């Protein structure tokens, strides 16, 4: 990979347009778009039939390093991200040690730079050790080389309303956002599966929707009260979407994400007690899935975020109640979104670009990402073939873990190439 490599991508359809055109990448940026482009010395990529999206941005990724390198590393997780079409990921803070100091977030940021598959933007913990009692040094993390703007205790809820209020207020000083994992801890003690017909039949402790919705309602009110930016992680219920729609109608500074798995899968899959379907928040009902899709389509939910949560085999080959929560998702995200949103007519490709690149980059305060493709845009882009359905198989891909809930399922589409700063990280579906 030379610094001054230039690429001419021919015959491509830019998301949101119907016409085929060419894209010229030179010097790390998009320098030209048009059907008759030519550039002597440029490498040619025949992209006939492919869709070009601005490089995808994930607001919610667990890279597991430091601490759980048996499940994933920054190297393997970002490789998986590139294969999924991502050019930037936000690395969640629940590592060991927790990313609650400038030292840890800078380490993760440097590991991302060294890996080079995509940009890694660390997320800082809201509270020390994710323990929910004392604010972490948010300002120091913001001022560090990692330039942290998103703070989250993801995996745990900032349940104390006073602490949540203070966190929201405090990060205003540096344009930060608090990303809340909305889960009332008392209402979900020992909870295993969405509370409903399935949990009743399977004898698994129920996880009520209200445990999520109650926290979201409270936090929307707090965000309005102090005028601070709130982001809701992995929204999973119809009621949550309704509350967020109401908060947005008031003009309050609230944003939200939904995972690919909550757009496609339901709690019925727990029928055989296979913990590959165990996730936090839990899979919900078909009615919830339909409402989440509608909310993503109308913009109530701003973006798709993977919540890529790799776990080693032994954490899932166990009894349901003993198993770890979480699913991998980076390598299948775009394909799942095509199936759930595009093939159903709910979202067009311009909408996908908006929900998977433009808006997540904006929420993450990630400058230089999420810029619609046009002359002068950064050279981050994803080339996708929407007409290449294939069955998901494990082990496959780059993630160290194989806890994908989509194994055996046929999904549409294939990420053909990913470019980061004008340089391919993936070509012909393989890492460069």
């Amino acid at each position, binding site marked *: 990979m030379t610094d001054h490599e230039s690429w001419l991508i021919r015959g491509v359809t830019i998301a949101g347009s119907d016409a085929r055109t060419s894209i010229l990448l030179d010097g790390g940026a998009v320098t030209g778009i048009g059907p008759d482009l030519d550039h002597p010395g440029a490498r040619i990529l025949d992209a006939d039939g492919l869709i070009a999206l601005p490089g995808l941005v994930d607001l919610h990724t667990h890279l597991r390093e430091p601490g759980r390198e048996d499940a994933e590393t920054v190297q393997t997780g970002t490789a998986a991200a590139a294969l999924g079409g991502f050019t930037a990921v936000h690395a969640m803070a629940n590592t060991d040690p927790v990313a609650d100091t400038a030292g840890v977030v800078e380490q993760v940021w440097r590991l991302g730079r060294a890996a080079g598959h995509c940009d890694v933007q660390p997320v800082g913990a809201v509270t020390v050790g994710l323990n929910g009692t004392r604010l972490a040094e948010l300002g120091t993390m913001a001022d560090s080389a990692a330039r942290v703007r998103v703070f989250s205790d993801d995996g745990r809820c900032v349940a104390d309303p006073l602490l949540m209020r203070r966190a929201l207020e405090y990060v205003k000083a540096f344009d930060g956002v608090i990303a809340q994992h909305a889960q009332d801890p008392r209402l979900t003690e020992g909870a*295993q599966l969405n*509370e*409903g*017909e399935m*949990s*009743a*039949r*399977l*004898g*698994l*402790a*129920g996880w*009520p929707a209200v445990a999520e919705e109650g926290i979201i309602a409270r936090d929307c009110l707090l965000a309005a009260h102090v005028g601070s930016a709130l982001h809701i992680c992995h929204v999973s219920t119809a009621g949550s979407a309704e509350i967020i729609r109401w908060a947005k109608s008031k003009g309050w500074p609230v944003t939200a994400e939904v995972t690919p798995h909550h757009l496609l899968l339901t709690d019925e899959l727990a029928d*055989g*007690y296979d913990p590959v379907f165990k996730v936090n928040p839990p899979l919900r009902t078909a009615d919830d899935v339909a409402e989440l899709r509608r909310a993503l389509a109308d913009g109530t939910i701003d973006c798709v975020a993977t919540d890529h949560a790799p776990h080693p085999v*032994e954490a899932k*080959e*166990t*009894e*349901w*109640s*003993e198993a770890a929560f979480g699913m991998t998702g980076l390598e299948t995200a775009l394909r799942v979104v095509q199936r759930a949103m595009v093939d159903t007519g709910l979202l067009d490709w311009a909408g996908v670009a908006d929900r998977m690149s433009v808006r997540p980059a904006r929420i993450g305060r990630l400058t230089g990402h999420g810029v619609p493709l046009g002359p002068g845009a950064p050279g981050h882009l994803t080339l996708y073939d929407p007409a290449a359905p294939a069955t998901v198989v494990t082990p496959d891909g780059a993630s160290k873990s194989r806890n994908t809930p989509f194994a055996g399922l046929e999904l549409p589409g294939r990420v053909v190439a990913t470019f980061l700063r004008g340089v391919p990280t993936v070509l012909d579906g393989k890492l460069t």
Partner: protein
Amino acid sequence: MKRHLISAGDLSRADALLILDTAEELAGLADRPIKKLPTLRGRTVVNLFYEDSTRTRISFEAAAKRLSADVINFSAKGSSVAKGESLKDTALTLEAMGADAVVIRHGASGAAHRLAHWVRGSVLNAGDGTHEHPTQALLDAFTIRRRLRGDNPRGAGLDGLRVTIVGDVLHSRVARSNVLLLSTLGAEVTLAAPPTLLPLAVGSWPCAVSYDLDSELAKSDVVMMLRVQQERMTAAYFPSVREYSRRYGLDAERMARLPGHAIVMHPGPMNRGVEIAAEVADSVRSTIVEQVANGVTTRMAVLYLLLGGTEFPATGEA
């Protein structure tokens, strides 16, 4: 669920009647001086018990031994499980030892399902968490049928019988299996409990629901009392044991309001004075001791049919 007995819901009416009728055949054995059949000679049955349950374990052990099977008791205490071996590794070990059937009792719902993926032999669910306990339901159905369907009940279902199950349904594997099996056999099941101890989605079950035990008594042919755990009180499921007992306990006064033929059941172990009064437990209506004896017979029938090559569902698709 072929080869296995994991959920009472996997049994068709024909399957359930086959088990009950086989148990009737085997019941005669208990009255003979030599209580043993050679049927399962050379077969190995493992009792894999992750929870203390002496009564269920010895019931399965007696059932297997009366069919001449070799029985290995594997208790979580004092085994490698205490050192942190996973269920899968234990399953592979049992597989390597050539277990023809594994009887599993486990604190996690779904443990029997998982085990069935990892062993070739038959898996019998002897209680998994708060999910199911299908042989308990079979022995209860067997007991009801004997008491209320005459001396030769072979071939008979439980059609039209009204069974009221009382207590902590939410956490009860006995209740889940009984609702499924008894309704399959034609009984009309009503669950009577405080709302906190019923699953929120209980409306999707094949039974009726009542919060008022007293209104159910006069129309019940069978009252089945469930054990109530003291620790439910601290988790705010009900205010006090005394109040629970007052509203949902079966005492002599309530028993007197049952129809003359009605029976009282309890899967044991009982909390005398909490969900059931001593004079009720010891009355002629009580089937509690019979249930224990019938447990051995019914489990013999299940082992006999599963290891004898019968697949459930025996008739058509599940």
